[in-house]
């Protein structure tokens, strides 16, 4: 059985600008009146800061949803 080989073709950058960045975001939003609306509201709040990649509501307190998330966004090379 031959050893695994490293593919030798260089991987070129897709372009000089923009480059993707990952950012940790924490935010709060009011608790929606309907649970049906909750996920859409969270995503809308995060989308103002980037494309949501992974998120969670971490607590509910005083009428607010506390949210932590990683979003991706375009930055400068």
């Amino acid at each position, binding site marked *: 059985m031959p050893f695994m080989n490293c593919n030798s073709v260089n*991987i070129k950058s897709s372009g000089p600008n923009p480059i993707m960045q990952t950012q940790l975001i924490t935010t709060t939003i009011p608790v929606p009146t309907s649970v049906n609306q909750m996920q859409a509201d969270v995503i809308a709040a995060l989308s103002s800061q980037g494309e949501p990649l992974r998120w969670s*509501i971490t607590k509910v307190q005083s009428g607010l949803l506390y949210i932590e998330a990683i979003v991706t966004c375009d930055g400068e090379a």
Partner: protein
Amino acid sequence: MTSPYTVGVIVPTGVGAVIGGYAGDALPVVRAIAQVADRVITHPNVMNGASLYWNLPNVLYVEGFGIDQFAAGAWGLQPVRRNRIGLLLDRGIEAELRWRHLQVADAARATLGLDLTDYVVTDEALTVELRSADSGATWGTIGNPDSLLRAAAKLIALGATAIAVVVRFPETTDAAALQAYRHGQGVDPLAGAEAVISHLIVRQFRIPCAHAPALSPLPIDPAISPRSAAEELGYTFLPCVLAGLSRAPQFTQQPHQGIWADSLDALVIPASCCGGSAVLSLSQTNTQIITVAENTTRMQVYPKDLGLQTLSVRSYLEAIGALVAHRAGITTASLAAGDIAPLQCSP
């Protein structure tokens, strides 16, 4: 005839779950549930025990971003007999550590008969930064996500149908947190960043993916917790990832192919973790959500906080009983002590 009884099991990554927050220590839960379900859908954090893993033919190994898409009804799961795995290595991994991982991959080919493409090294070091948020959950950011995605694209071009990623993680600078984790307390300092890496690839390419961190071996510690001990066994955490990915289902957007959320009968989660995407999606469906109280986490989002209708149980043992009753079509109230209220005439 009824459709295959299908159960989802989620223990979110990096939230300090007392069961499943360490090194594959929710695997016994899935092994037990797999005995009472026809199919179980779960994610790498539950199944991965570094050098330890367990082959369960009726368990579908699905990365977390894919689980969220599945729960939302956006993606289906198409079981496969095997995947061809592409191994993606971070350029930031030192030569000796890279060899350790390559030898695991070659060993998996020789001993398990797994199918791998040639490997790819990223064109830049990926530069992971570990983060901890106010909740106590761990997260992470990646310095060069484009480099990660370019390498994944290369593997797919080589024929990979699943991607195993190994990224050099920083040696944890918080010695107290690391010691707590190794002793079975606290939050896995790496887990949140690991999820970000695999989410990036699954989101971009809709392909099965899982991650193993590359780290220098730690000094021997006789007080290691059994829950964390799986990560002390070898030089890498890669074996479980390769085993899991070898049969991980593919994602489909063809409505009449594969398994879709409308066939998920039940979902088992820690009671404090109701604030994730998959739970919110499934709360709007016929899936029975079962919340387990004793699997505490750093999250503080309980069903009552969001107005979710769930079945609350104390332990995973009780959850397994609830699944058996649910599968049999028996209301849990019929199994409890005490009077059953007489039916009333509805106004």
